[in-house]
């Protein structure tokens, strides 16, 4: 087991912790066999969906639930689904689960898949039913060896029980679910690059429109959703949209719970399922705060591609709009903390090295601009920066910003850089060589 989950939380139930309650009920052991999963309401959402609900009803319910995508962008799931053609001649449609989890700092989907594989399988079946897809894929990163094994096992068990395959629960509807393991590149997580990768191509993004809901995998209507997004769906079916909206307990206008986490030099790094909109301070407290002798300097709210925030922002609600208004993004919601003993410039250099290496190379500003950014940061880190370097970096944050590149990879790369310069300019200045002529 890789992560510490819900350390310090009690009173965990299906009503309060839809994503992780089963794991807790099973004494923090993974649920790998069908019987145990079934004994914990497993596949009852599927039964209810198929016996009592039309696909359109589920779509309406998901829209009413106000569920927003947990892959990083927070796009409303119900709206995404409503774009999929539902008429009788819509032909082949696909559901794809984005399980590529490679956003640095993010370790939530791994937990969900390793410990609760049936939960994702059920979520995929119900969601495929809602859009009337007959083929579904879990696009899983190849490094998640244990998740691959456990998901495949869960799929076999679900097939044997009649939850997958032909004429599911007598509905006349068929679904084939396949785990596709990737071969590693961060860009595969971008949904159109993911589709290219699944088709066996280089994972360069595609231009949008057309959106995948209209022309996705093999040109057919396709829904791509993150693991955490999907596993909310069965609970919404069982308990309703109002219950889901109320899960945030008034902390946010967003709905549901969220898997939040903390990494960095804190006492108890880990993962917690909390009402969405819980504050960063609450989350950091669950992680025990920083290790003795360290002080919080800055934090990334949800992955490498989010802007730094400061200690003064800790009381903000961790939801899409609040963190957005503070000049960052909630992203994946897994916090990384920088303390006062970290070298900030080195951290930014590390971040940009990641983005430079993972650029897919398709468009010039990203392909050439990121390595250049790294070079300048390396110089500043060694106190070898030249006059004008900070202005150059600022120019890059504009040249690689939103709308300037083919996909959101390069703008994501600029988020930690621009906020680091904004909040810690003096540390950049210290890395610039004194000009001899002044």
């Amino acid at each position, binding site marked *: 087991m*890789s*992560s*510490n989950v819900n350390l310090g939380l009690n009173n965990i139930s299906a009503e309060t912790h839809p994503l992780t309650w089963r794991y807790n009920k099973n004494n923090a052991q993974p649920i790998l066999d069908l019987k145990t999963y079934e004994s914990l309401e497993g596949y009852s959402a599927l039964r209810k969906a198929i016996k009592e609900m039309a696909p359109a009803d589920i779509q309406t319910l998901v829209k009413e639930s106000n569920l927003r995508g947990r892959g990083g962008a927070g796009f409303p799931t119900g709206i995404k689904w409503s774009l999929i053609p539902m008429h009788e001649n819509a032909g*082949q449609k696909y559901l794809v689960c984005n399980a590529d*989890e*490679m*956003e*640095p*700092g*993010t*370790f939530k*989907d*791994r937990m969900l898949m390793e410990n609760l594989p049936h939960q994702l399988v059920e979520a995929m079946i119900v969601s495929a039913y809602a859009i009337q897809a007959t*083929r579904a894929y879990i696009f899983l*990163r*190849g*490094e*998640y*060896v244990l998740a691959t094994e456990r998901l495949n096992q869960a799929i076999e068990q679900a097939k044997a029980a009649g939850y997958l395959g032909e004429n599911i629960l007598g509905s006349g509807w068929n679904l084939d679910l*396949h785990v*596709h*393991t*990737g*071969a*590693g*590149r*961060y860009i595969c997580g971008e949904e159109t690059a993911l589709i290219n*990768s*699944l*088709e*066996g*191509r*280089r*994972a360069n993004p595609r231009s949008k429109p057309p959106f995948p809901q209209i022309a996705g995998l*093999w040109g057919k209507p396709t829904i791509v959703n993150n693991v955490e997004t999907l596993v909310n769906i069965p609970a919404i079916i069982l308990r309703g949209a109002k219950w889901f909206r109320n899960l945030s307990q008034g902390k946010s206008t967003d709905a549901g719970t969220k898997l939040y*986490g*903390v*990494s*960095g*030099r804190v006492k108890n*790094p*880990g*993962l917690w399922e909390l009402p969405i909109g819980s504050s960063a301070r609450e989350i950091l407290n669950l992680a025990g705060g920083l290790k003795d002798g360290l002080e919080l300097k800055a934090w*990334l709210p949800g992955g*490498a591609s989010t802007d730094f925030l400061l200690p003064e922002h800790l009381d903000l609600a961790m939801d899409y709009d609040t963190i957005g208004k503070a000049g960052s993004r909630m992203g994946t919601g*897994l916090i*990384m*903390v*920088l303390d006062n003993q*970290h070298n900030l410039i*080195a*951290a930014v250099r*590390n*971040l940009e*090295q*990641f983005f430079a*290496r*993972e650029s*897919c190379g398709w468009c010039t500003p990203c392909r050439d601009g990121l390595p250049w950014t790294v070079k300048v940061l390396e110089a500043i880190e060694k106190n070898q920066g030249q006059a004008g370097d900070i202005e150059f970096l600022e120019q890059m944050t504009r040249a690689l910003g939103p709308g300037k590149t083919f996909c959101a990879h390069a703008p994501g790369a600029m988020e930690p850089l621009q906020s680091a310069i904004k909040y810690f300019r003096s540390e950049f200045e210290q890395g610039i060589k004194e000009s001899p002529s002044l």
Partner: protein
Amino acid sequence: MMEKIIATDRYQFTAEDKAEIEHCLHHYDDSRAASIDALKIVQRRHGWVPDNAIAAIAEILGIPGSDIEGVATFYNRIYRQPVGRNVIAVCDSIGCFLVGFEEIYSALKKQLAIQPGQTTADNRFTLLPICCLGACDRGPVLMINDDTHFDVSVEKLDAVLEQYL
């Protein structure tokens, strides 16, 4: 040591590998989609993907060899040159940076006397960087072959490496 394989030699799949690639085709609505699966099957056999396997995969899938090569060279985890018996992939992303992966990376480079991308003279280890392994709360993290090692420290390195001959 580089294993010499001349590209004009026809690549021979084992019957098992060929059957597995053909089976993969059933999972997709287009044969091209099995490219990555096929490359991985070949790599499992040799540790890397030899030149002449590219053409052989292309033939099974019915697509140009250049497309297979394009895919093979795009992805981080497909190797187009020989690697050692064991591949060490060290997470070098920011979560592990914050808990000191650089120290471990340096220790590995020194101990194995190689740089990232290289293989030890005895062919035992190849050292590579890898993106966030999704276990940042238990970093530093590294993978050796299919095994993930959490909470790695310089002190623990010997005990970890010992498991791989």
